[in-house]
Structures are given as structure tokens and as C-alpha cells.
């Protein structure tokens, strides 16, 4: 893809790589994030998620490859006005009040001074800190700091918001709030790049995602593309002879837990056929539970395939 095409995208990277000495933090990352889409960047600890975001916001310099953010090469000063970023591990100046942190960022972002007050009030309200605006940040819990960080990332209606593990310090209510905020961002046309190792989080809010492991993308696409069409089915059976069990392997990847048999990669149309085969083999069926594969299953499977 050429730079010109990158203009219509929120993020585009081409073979982006980063090494720290001998550690390969990111190798050959190629991906695109569209405007106004919520993009999940999912991977286990140490996969290179934080590294990727740091490259995108210009905190670290790539070892190879190219990247564009909102159509401009990474690091472009003017483009940074239109970015919001919540770092993973950070602290704000403890000696400042929450509202002062926000106004500092309004100033650095180059927002017109007349709008600061409203901007700050709305950011505090969005992240549920309206009551704490005049409190010093040093007294904030980690979760409150993370809320404040999210508020900072939302200042000035950015076109792209990069969130690095935004819920790592939050309680369930906070997690729910963050999901709501992400949905609102999407509704007003903001692209969101969400780094996370939490599958449920990604599953609930993301339009598309990339699964990363050890610095490379191992799968990318919409949720259903990544999950695949094939589901799984769990069947509770008794009285099935071992030979019968063996014969059932033809119906898919069989996971044998005694009474419970799980068949993976089995299309729903073949479920009745499977049941009559079990009965033919002498089995007595108590329950049949069709199961859609969860992102967690798929994720673990993808990681396993990588190792294999």
C-alpha cells in the first residue's frame, strides 16, 4: 500500500519492526486500522503491543519498516494534535490537581484557551472524576489515575485514540465505563486502537482485531473471521464403547472428558447426524449443547499453532 492510501486510514504499518538490543519486540508488523473503527490489538504479555503503540505515537523509533498515523508518517508534529494516547504504565505529576493536569494537556495539544474549561469539565465527567478535579493527583489510586489518563486521552476530540491496557487497574464498574466510553468514541467517528490481553474486553467492543504473539501478527480480521465459521458441540453420553468413541473422531476434533465429549470444527448441520451415529454405536445421549467457539478458545489455539 502506498502512502496516499494510508491517508484514508487511521493507522497503517508496513513491515514495522523494533529490536531492543537482541530482543525482538516487534517483527514485520503490517496492519491497517480504518477511520472510526475500534481495533483490538490482542496478545499475551510481552507480545509487543506496547512497543507497537509507542512506535505509533513516536515514543520509540522503529528499527525497520514504515508507519503512518492519520495519513502522516509517524512522529509528525501537526498530526499529534489529533491523537489521544493512554500509556500503559504512567503517573502524572503528583503535585498537580487533576484539572491542572488536564489543562496542561489542553495547552500542549494546542486547544484554544477559551475552550479549556468546558473541555476539562467534560473529560472529568466522562471518566467519572467530576468530584475530584480539585484534588491533587498524588492522592489518586491507580484506577483513578487510569481514569484521569483516559480523560487526558479524550481531550480535544481526537480522531484516533490509542489505549494501552486501559482497564488494567480498574474494577468491574470501571471496565464497564471504559467499554461505554469506547462505544461513544466510535459513535462520534473516532478510531480506537485498543491494546489488551483481556479477551472479553476485545470481544465486546472491537470491530476488528489483530492477534499478536512474540512480535508478529498471527491472525487478523473481524471477530467472525478470526473465530471461523465452525462451532463446537458438547454432548453428554453414557454407555459408549471405546471402539464407538474412536469412530466418532470422524466428526471433528474430539475432546474426551468421560461423559462429556466436545467436538470442535463441526458445522451445525451435522449435529443430528452425529447424534444418530452416537445412538447407533450404543451410546445414550443426555444432552447436546451447541457451542460457539469463544475468542479465548481460538486465541489459545492460535498460540498453540504458533508453537507447533
Amino acid at each position: 500500500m502506498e502512502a496516499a492510501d494510508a491517508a484514508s486510514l487511521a493507522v497503517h504499518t508496513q513491515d514495522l519492526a523494533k529490536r531492543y538490543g537482541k530482543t525482538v519486540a516487534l517483527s514485520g508488523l503490517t496492519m491497517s486500522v480504518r477511520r472510526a473503527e475500534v481495533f483490538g490489538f490482542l496478545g499475551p504479555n510481552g507480545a509487543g503491543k506496547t512497543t507497537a503503540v509507542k512506535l505509533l505515537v513516536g515514543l520509540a523509533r522503529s528499527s525497520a519498516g514504515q508507519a503512518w498515523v492519520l495519513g502522516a508518517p509517524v512522529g509528525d508534529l501537526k498530526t499529534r494534535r489529533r491523537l489521544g494516547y493512554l500509556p500503559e504504565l504512567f503517573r502524572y505529576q503528583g503535585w498537580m490537581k487533576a484539572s491542572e493536569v488536564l489543562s496542561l494537556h489542553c495547552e500542549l495539544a494546542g486547544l484554544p484557551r477559551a475552550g479549556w474549561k468546558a473541555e476539562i469539565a467534560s473529560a472529568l465527567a466522562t471518566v467519572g472524576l467530576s468530584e475530584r478535579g480539585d484534588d491533587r493527583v498524588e492522592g489518586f489510586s491507580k484506577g483513578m489515575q487510569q481514569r484521569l489518563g483516559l480523560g487526558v486521552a479524550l481531550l480535544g476530540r481526537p480522531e484516533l485514540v490509542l489505549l494501552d491496557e486501559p482497564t488494567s487497574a480498574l474494577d468491574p464498574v470501571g471496565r464497564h465505563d471504559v467499554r461505554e466510553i469506547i462505544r461513544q468514541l466510535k459513535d462520534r467517528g473516532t478510531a480506537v486502537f485498543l491494546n489488551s490481553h483481556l479477551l472479553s474486553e476485545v470481544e465486546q467492543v472491537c470491530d476488528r482485531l489483530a492477534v499478536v504473539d512474540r512480535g508478529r501478527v498471527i491472525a487478523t480480521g473481524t471477530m467472525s473471521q478470526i473465530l471461523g465459521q465452525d462451532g463446537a458441540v458438547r454432548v453428554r453420553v453414557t454407555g459408549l464403547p471405546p471402539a464407538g468413541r474412536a469412530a466418532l473422531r470422524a466428526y471433528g476434533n474430539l475432546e474426551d472428558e468421560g461423559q462429556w465429549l466436545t467436538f470442535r470444527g463441526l458445522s451445525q448441520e451435522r449435529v443430528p447426524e452425529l447424534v444418530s451415529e452416537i445412538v447407533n454405536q450404543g451410546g445414550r445421549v443426555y444432552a447436546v449443547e451447541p457451542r460457539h467457539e469463544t475468542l479465548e478458545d481460538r486465541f489459545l489455539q492460535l498460540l498453540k499453532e504458533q508453537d507447533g
Partner: protein
Amino acid sequence: MHVLTMARLTILEASRRKLLLALALLTLVVIVLTSWGFSRLPTMNGVTPAEVRVAASQLTILVAFMFSGVLALGATLVAAPSIASDIESGIALAILPRPIRRSEVLIGKWLGLAVLIALYAALSGVLEMVGIWWATAYLPPSPAVAITFVGAEGIVLMTLALLLSTRLAPMTGGVIALVLFFVGWIGGIALTIGQTFQNSTIINIGVGSRLLIPTDGLWHGAIFYLEPSDFLAAAQAAGRVRAGNPFFADSPLPLPYLVWIAAWILIVLVLANWSFARRDL
């Protein structure tokens, strides 16, 4: 624009963290105590006004030395964490993705610290001089120039600590800057000894250290303007006896050396900029 924002932030932080208040109170106590000490000089038994003048001039240099030490230590302690602790705590992660250049952050911090140092040197210097004058009616020949040089010493050391702060942990950078400060001081003593005994190797070492770490050079510049002319003439007549005395200077700083110090600050700032710009966070 952003340079001023960062400078303002640096000064605000020093004041919010009670650094300014603590320094102001301690300095006031020191000035009151030393002025009281000076005021005892003329009351001593059988002392002549000339003797009071000599004693006061010597003590003034010692007090200036103490202030230059406070300023050097203080400047190092404040500058060594300035970039490093922002990186450690992650404050830098939040600020640098904004439309601000890393150079603006660095120069802004430098400017804020330089203003603090200059203000401290000026206020404490003027108050101390007033105290001494009140106590003994003695005033050194060029107090303003001397105070300027002491302040510049602080700025030189602060700039060095700031450079180290772009790469090293606060403690490491601070310790290195202070060690260099003391090495420079010893280098200055070596220089005067080498000059007295005309040993070119020692002279070269001394000159090298004055060029690399100009704090001791500035200190000697300050001393010169605190020495009354009659005292200076007598000391010069004494010759070798004065060799290696770190509280004596027999000549003003040459103009090329002053230019070098300005260039030194600029070079170190450029290096700091280059080092910070290249650092992965």
C-alpha cells in the same frame, strides 16, 4: 511557546514541592547568622579598622564559597532527576506524544532551572552582601560580578546534570556531576600549583580540567571580584606562599575563557538534546 510552558511547569513544581520555601527559610537563617558573626568583628578587643576590613574580606570569600557549594549541590540535585524521573515515572510518556518537540521539553526545563538558580544566586547574594555591609561597613569591590559568576557556576553544573539526566538514573547522574565538580576543584588547585612551580604537565592537566568542567574557573572568577585591591597587591607580593590556595585568585578571567564557558553551556545543551531525542522511551 512550549518552551515557556515547560519552564513555567519546572518553576511551579519547585514551588509546589516546597523547595523554594525550604531554600528561602534556610538561606535567611544562614544570612542572619553570618551577619551576626560579621557584626562581632569590630567589637573584638583592640582590633583596628584595617584588620576588620582584612578579616571581613577573607570571611566574605569563605561565605561566597559556602553559597557556591550550596548552589552547586542544589543545582545538581534538582537537575539530575529532571528528565530521568519523568521517564521513570511515565510522565514523559504522557507528555511527549503531544505536539511538542523533545528539544522544547529539554530547553524548557533548562530555562526554568536556570531562572531558579539565577534568582537564588541574586537574592541570597544581595541579602548576604547587605548583611555584611551592615555589620562591618565592608563591601567587596565588585559584588554583582562575583554573584553573577557564582550563579553561572550553578548553571554550568545544572546543565551538566541535565545532560546526564537524559540517559542515567537520577542518583547516578547526580553523583557523577558532583564528582566532576570536585575533580574540577582539585584541577583548579593543581593549576595554581603548576603555575607557581612552572611545571607544564601539571599546568596542562589543570587547564584541561578548567576547560572540561568550568565550575572552578568560575569560582576563581568570583573570588577575584571579592578581593580588595590592597589585599590583592599584598598577596601577589607574597608569591609562592599563595600557591594552591583555592580561596585566592590573582587575575580576572580572560575574555576568551568567558566565551568558552558560554560555548560550553551551548555544546552540553546540544549534546543533551541529541541524547534525549535518540532515547527510546
